[in-house]
Each structure stands twice: as C-alpha cells, then as structure tokens.
C-alpha cells in the first residue's frame, strides 16, 4: 500500500493544531458508530491490592483457582498455596493500566465510574478521600457519579477533596445541594453537575449522573446524613436526556448509583436512557441485563461491573442514527498472574507514584502489617445457614463485654462488617478492611417489648434479603422466621424475653440513630455514645484471644436460626 498523508483533527474548540489542518467530523448519518465505555464502580478506597478468598461467583467471573504449578510469590500473600487464590487482587494502579490498554483498543471511548470511591480501607480513614481523588484522576476517569459513601466525612469534605484533587466530572442530577432555605445547603452545588456532554470525533455522548436514594436516612429528616435533597430519578433523567438530545447527544448514558433494583425500575419506566451503568450493590453482572421498557419496548442494557477495584468492565456499543443497535461486554478481573499469562496487568507507573506517598504515610502512621492474631480458618461475616456468623458473633461479643460497656445484650448490623477475615495471620489492615467505618458503641435501655420489636425488624429486613440475618447479636438467641417476618422464641442470656423487663443494649452509633431503618433505636431517649471505637474493641479482642476461632469465640452458635 502506498503511504498517504496524515491529517490531524481537532475534537473541540481549543484545538492543539492550527486551524488549517483540521478536518470536519465524519458523516455519521446512517453509519454504524462504535462506542466503548470503560466502567468501574464502588472502588471503596481499595487503592492497594489485597487478599480475599474468592467465592464460587468470583471463580466464575475469572478469579480462578491457583495453578498448582505456579509457585507462590514472595509478596506476603497468606492465601497462596492454601486456597483458591490468585491474590493479591485488584488495586487502582493495575486498573489504570487496564484502562489505558483498553482506551488504546477503542474507537470512541469514555471512562466512567459509578460512585462510592470513598470508604472501605484505611487510606480513607487516614486521608479522607485525597488518595482516591488523585488516583482516579490519574487513572483517567472522565466522569464519576456521587455515591452515598462519598458523604461519609460529610458533604463539605467531599467538596474540599474534589476541589483540591479531583480532575474528572462529578455528576448527580437527582440531588439538590443549594436550596438556601435548608440548613444543609453547601458548596457542592457549584461542583456537581447533573450531566456532561462529551464529543468523540463528531459523536456526542451525554452522561447523566444519578446518586443513591435508598441510603438516605430519611429524605425528609433534617438529620439526613448526606446533606442533599433528592429528586425523582425518572423525572430528572427524562428532563436531562431531552436537554442533552437538544444539544446533539447521539447516545444518552445514565451513570447511576441507585442500585440494581433502581436501575431496572428506571429502565422499565423511563425510555430516555440508551444504557445504564450502575453501582452500589457491588454486583458484577456478566453479561449485562437488558430491560424492556414497559411502554415503548425499547431495550435498555443495565451494566454493573463489580466493586472493590476487582474488575474493569468494557462495554462496546454500536449506534446508528442515535439508536443503540447492539451491545457487547467484557469483564476484566484484576489478578496477580505471571507476566507471560495473557491476563497479566502491571502497575501503572503514574498511579503508583501517586500511591507511594500514601503508602509511606500509612506505614509511618499506622503499622498496618502488625500481626495481632491468627485465624485458623476464614472468619466469615455471613453465617452458612443465613443466621449468626463467626465474625458477627465475635464483634457483638466484643462490643458487649468491653470494659465501660458491659451490657446485657448487643446488636450490630451485619453490613457494618464489610469483609471476611482470611485464614492466616490477622493484621491491623485486615481488621480495617473488615470494619472500615469509624463507628462507636452506643448504649441504651430497651423494654422487652422494644427488644421484640427490634428483632422483628431484623427478621423483616432479613426476609427482604434472602433470609440472611441483617444483624448480629450477643446475649440473645432467637428464631428468625422470614416467612412470618418476625422473631420467635427470643431468649436473653438463657431466659425467655420478658416484655416488661428492661434490658441494656450495646449497638453501633449508625443504627442507634436510625441508620438502615432501625426506628426503634432512633426514637430511644436513653442513648449514650460511649465514644469507644468498635474497630478498636475488635482489635483488642483478637489480641486477647490470639488464635481464632475458639470454643465460644468467633463460631457460629445458632444464636439466630433462619427459617423461611
């Protein structure tokens, strides 16, 4: 073939080349246009690679068992050789490499994040989001939706971190931040946009952000922890999509943190989006769902690409005359494999450099690698039969028995424990990963009737979640009947629950103030926040036991019998 001259095309208004060398965008009418969306979600501060024990579902998604011929690397991987493992997994430096590689393998491409980059590892506890903002920017994220955990240090912290370190578009069309009549009005109003429009060689992609609604403590309560006034997702998507189409959008993407059920409901009821990229529930759905709109029959893909920096999702779309014709999807797991393995992904140097300073700081401030105990087998946060769990029992016991608390009973929400503790040495880092929230122990007095109401609520909430116990207890045994949605046969420290008696409860400050819908705790007027960190209490308990599980400690005991 003969060589032909190269022409440079400027994509927007501030081109880097002289006007004379620009060429007009191609004639897109009637043509198939290939668009690639690289998708990540719910990074949850897992910027550094980490170990975990892959589940059956993880195995199916590419976290395959060890090759017995592959020797264990000298990387401190406690699971290598012991279990199904190609850890340590994930990490934003390897995700950045994947993103750059896949960008280079695409025609028109955006990198989109479905939110919750904050909270979940000690780097957030220590630096409040700076590391996440810098790393996501360096990794090349084009736009991110505001997730509910972005507010974990308050709305002002999010604004400060984003202004100082964020280099991507921050979106949420269904949040109002700037109603001056409301006490929580704040400076996010100037930073968070409802949508963004990107142009790629003549093709325009509109991206609408949708923040989470289900995690608001109450959308009408002034103690609303997210400092926002939420709007109806369907209405704002219809409005923003129309605005974007007016501006020439050929494709409308909803970047959502609603959760899967919210995304499906949106696609079913509102035909304005062409595709929804979602997060919040930490699901990796391969391949994506396709939801049929109830009225028009439009087929709208709903994409969820996992969490905790374990995956990068690649969505390939073919669009013709603003109609999405077909979708293809690839989910890349972030593994530790030899360099000659086709799945190998190395660290991105620029992101590694960003992380280095934070790693040094953590090493200096907190001895994350300090071994505080030993787990003879994995300490699970969920019970095998849906009831009480090893880690749940251990945590609730530690809360109840700690000096200065010493209540009759304890209850904590299962979702406050975010990860298992793997077999092997237990480090400070592992405890931070399992218990990332800076929650404290709150005590209060409840009547026996209120304890029954509390446990009935646990049964109701658990019944909505596959009859998996949504709370863990100490000093209490009961049958959680998910069919009747009530707690049966409640026993407190060996005696049947007395409705007229008074019991002192230890719980965490999040649910004590009504988080996750625990209204019976929220309305209690005897609450005392002890200020005692639950994570510190658990660390002390592990140090005291040294090896877990032991009889009566970190074992499933049938405290909660799940029946359905």
């Amino acid at each position: 073939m003969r060589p032909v001259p190269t022409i440079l095309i400027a994509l927007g208004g501030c081109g880097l080349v002289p006007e004379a060398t620009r060429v007009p965008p191609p004639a897109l009418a009637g043509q198939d246009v290939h668009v690639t969306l690289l998708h990540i979600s719910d990074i949850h501060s897992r910027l550094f690679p980490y170990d975990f024990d892959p589940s059956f579902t993880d195995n199916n998604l590419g976290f395959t068992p060890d090759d017995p011929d592959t020797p264990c690397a000298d990387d401190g991987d406690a699971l290598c050789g012991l279990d199904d493992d190609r850890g340590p997994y994930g990490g934003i430096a390897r995700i950045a490499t994947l993103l750059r590689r896949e960008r280079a393998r695409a025609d028109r491409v955006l990198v989109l994040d479905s939110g919750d980059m904050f909270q979940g590892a000690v780097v957030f506890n220590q630096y409040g989001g700076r590391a996440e903002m810098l790393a996501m920017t360096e990794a090349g994220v084009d736009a991110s939706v505001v997730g509910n955990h972005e507010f974990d240090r308050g709305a002002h912290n999010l604004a400060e971190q984003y202004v100082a370190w964020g280099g991507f578009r921050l979106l949420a069309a269904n949040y109002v931040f700037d109603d001056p009549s409301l006490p929580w009005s704040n400076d996010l109003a100037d930073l968070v946009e409802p949508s963004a429009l990107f142009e790629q060689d003549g093709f325009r992609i509109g991206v609408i952000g949708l923040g989470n609604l289900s995690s608001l403590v109450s959308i009408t309560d002034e103690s609303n922890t997210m400092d926002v006034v939420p709007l109806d997702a369907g209405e704002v998507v219809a409005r923003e999509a129309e605005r974007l189409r007016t501006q020439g959008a050929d494709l409308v993407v909803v970047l959502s943190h609603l959760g899967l059920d919210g995304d499906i409901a949106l696609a079913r009821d509102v035909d304005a989006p062409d595709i929804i990229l979602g997060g919040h529930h930490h699901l990796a759905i391969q391949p994506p769902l396709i939801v049929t709109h109830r009225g028009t029959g439009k087929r709208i893909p709903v994409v969820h690409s996992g969490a905790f920096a374990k995956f990068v999702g690649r969505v390939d779309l073919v669009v013709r005359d603003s109609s999405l014709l077909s979708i293809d999807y690839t989910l890349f797991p972030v593994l530790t494999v030899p360099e000659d393995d086709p799945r190998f992904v190395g660290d991105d140097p620029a992101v590694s450099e960003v992380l280095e300073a934070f790693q040094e700081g953590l090493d200096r401030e907190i001895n994350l690698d300090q071994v505080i105990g030993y787990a003879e087998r994995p300490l699970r946060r969920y019970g095998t039969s849906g009831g009480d769990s090893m880690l749940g029992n251990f945590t609730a016991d530690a809360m109840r028995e700690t000096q200065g608390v010493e209540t009759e009973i304890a209850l904590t929400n299962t979702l406050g424990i975010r990860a298992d503790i793997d077999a092997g040495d237990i480090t400070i880092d592992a405890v931070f990963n399992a218990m990332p929230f800076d929650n404290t122990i709150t005590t209060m007095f409840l009547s026996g009737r209120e304890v029954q109401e509390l446990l009935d609520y646990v049964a109701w909430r658990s019944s909505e979640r596959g009859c998996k116990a949504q709370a863990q207890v100490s000093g209490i045994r009961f049958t959680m009947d998910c069919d009747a949605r009530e707690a049966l046969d409640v026993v407190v420290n060996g005696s049947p629950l007395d409705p007229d008696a008074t019991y002192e409860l230890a719980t965490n400050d999040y649910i004590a103030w009504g988080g996750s819908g625990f209204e019976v705790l929220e309305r209690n007027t005897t609450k005392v926040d002890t200020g005692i960190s639950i994570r510190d209490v658990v660390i002390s308990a592990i140090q005291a036991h040294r090896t877990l599980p032991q009889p009566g400690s970190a074992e499933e005991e049938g405290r909660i019998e799940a029946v359905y």
Partner: protein
Amino acid sequence: MHGTGPLPTCAAVLLGGCASTIQVDADRIAFLEVSLAQAFSGTEAAPAPFSTEAVHVEVRVQALDREARPLALDAVLSLDTRPGTLDSPTTVRLEEGAWQGRVTLRHGFGPTRIWFRDDQPQVGRDPTWVAAVSDALWFALPTLAQVQATGDHESNSLEGEFAELRTADREVVVTALGANGFWVTDLMDPPGDFNALFVYTFDRPEAVAAEEGEYAHAAGRDILLGERLSLLSGTDQEYLATTQISHPFYTFTRDAPAALPAALVLDSATACDDDAMERLESSLVRAEDVVIPSSFSSDDPDFQDYGQWPIDLDGCRLYAESSGTVPGWHPADHAGERLSYLQGLLQEVWGKWILLPRDPTDIAGASSAPGARTSPSGPPARPVPRPRP
C-alpha cells in the same frame, strides 16, 4: 508501515473542557457497512425458531472512509454474534475493501446481530477498532426445555449469557417459593422433561404484575403459587450445576393462577442416573420408602456446612436440605429410620442430587414436629415419565 495507531486517550469535553486531536489516514477505515446479502427468514412478527442447530446467513461487509465512500484496502476483520454463538468464520479478509460470504451461528434469540470489528493486528496496518453490526436476525426466544436440554447435566444451552425465555405463548408458572427465589415450570411441555428451572432473586421474591398490556410494579406483594409469567429474563447460570436465572426481570399476567403440577415419583433407575435426573432438575419430586443412613450424624461435614443430609432410595444416595423450611425436625434424630416419603424441589450440586422440602408436609412425620408449619397440599404425586426417545 504508515498506520497512525489508536486514538489518543483524552475525550473532548464540550462543557468547559478542552480538545484533543486525532490523527487520520486518508485510507483509514472510518466505518463498516454490514448488509444481509440474502433475506433472512425470521422477522420480528414471525421469528425464525430458536435453534441449537447451525443457521447460515449470507452477509456482505464494506469498508468506508470518513465521507462514507467505499475504501479499496485489504484488511482482516473479526466476527461474532450477540446474542448467540458464532460457529464460523471467526475472521474474514476484506479484499478491495469488501467481503461477502456465509456466516454460521446458533442459539440466537430475539434481535440477533452479527458483529464485524477491525481489531486484528496485521502486517502493514494497525486496527482502527471500528465496528458495525448486521440488521437484526429475528429468532424466537427459547423455551425452558430448550435451555435445559443439552445432553450434559452440568451445562445448559445459554450458560453465561443474558437469556430471555419464551413465556408469551407458553404456560410458565410458579411452582414453589424460596427465601431468595422461585421455581417455574412450563406446563406446555411434558412433565419432567427439562421443563423447570430456578429463578434466583437474591432478595425475597416479589411480584411485578402485568395489566392491560402494561407492567405495573407491585412492590411488596408476594408471588402466588401458580402465577403465570408474561416475561422472564436474566443471567443464565449453572450455579453448582443447577440452572438458574440470576438478576431476573420478570412480570406476571393477570390470569388466575394455574393448578400446580403433581410431584414426580422417583424410581431408583432414575435416581441413579445423572442424565435422567437432569430432566427433573428444579421440578417437585417425591422419593418414597427412603432410609436415613444409620451412620449419619449431625457432625457430618456436609450437614455442618450446608445443612445437607443423606437418604437412600433403593441403593441410590440422594440428599435433602431442610433446616430453613422444616424447623424443629432434626434429621440426625432420625438416623436409621425409614421415611414413607420425602419430597422437594430437585437441585444438583456437581452430581449430588438434593431434594429441598418446601415445608414440613414434604417429610413424612415432620408435620407433627414442634414449630412445624403447614401449607396447602399439592395434587397427588405421579410417576416420573419415561424420557422421550
């Protein structure tokens, strides 16, 4: 080599952003144009049958430049199909910018399109990553049996794909409810012939009702036994070798619930044959005159970890899992006993067949256990039909 390589990484942002540049060769592929060289038999109104056999389609593809003018270059493209499975070819060579030939695929359903991509490394040019698709090839949605019947009890025909199942002109009904999903059976197929599967909802399953042609969400309403599905789709998985639809999207008709199918009585020849049992997967089955081995105790690891306990049917080992649905009845207390019957939904875990009793009435004698609940009885059991030839 004069290829300019892939596009740069920075997206141009219209709203207050900056632009980047693209390098373009005059003979760089900007578009591919895919057309069907022969009309396809299926249409949206009258789709071609869902087929496990190969289907052939004559296709033409043409490379175009930025002005949508034909290009006369040589290039290798890759092919695929979504949904479905592409048999051949997996790559084609454009000569003078065009290729025409036969593409063979199977397992297409709904609007199925053939993808062409310029993504192959070649001597003399770099891929442009341009892609295009054919017009829709309309295939019928698969029935439950067409998904389940593959000849391999640990796989199904759409495993790993997003599946839309045929319900509109079928009688797909809910036969049982669980804590995290429900079981469905297509009553238009012969009983016990691959016509049942599990729908995994993760949360407590709730109903979405269809009304006057539109779907109305009925949040919080429990699904009723016998309800008829008007739509069912989701991720098709083999979870521990049992077919399930995960992350489902489903709706129900407003018709009166259907009568539930009878439990199918297992004989030992069926119970000892994985392929025969696969036909019954997710159906309600009944094992009569079974023995809980005297060697079983609550220390059994499978019981400790998963709540599974063994039963013997004429020398065939089966299992049951009852802790969540039959409270107060402890199998270890009955080791060595003969049960006149035990019935449940049939599930496979890698060649291990497990009956999931729905409530205490599914285990002989368990209804009288403390804390037992009762539920409406189903129709009388019937023997397992012989497989179709």
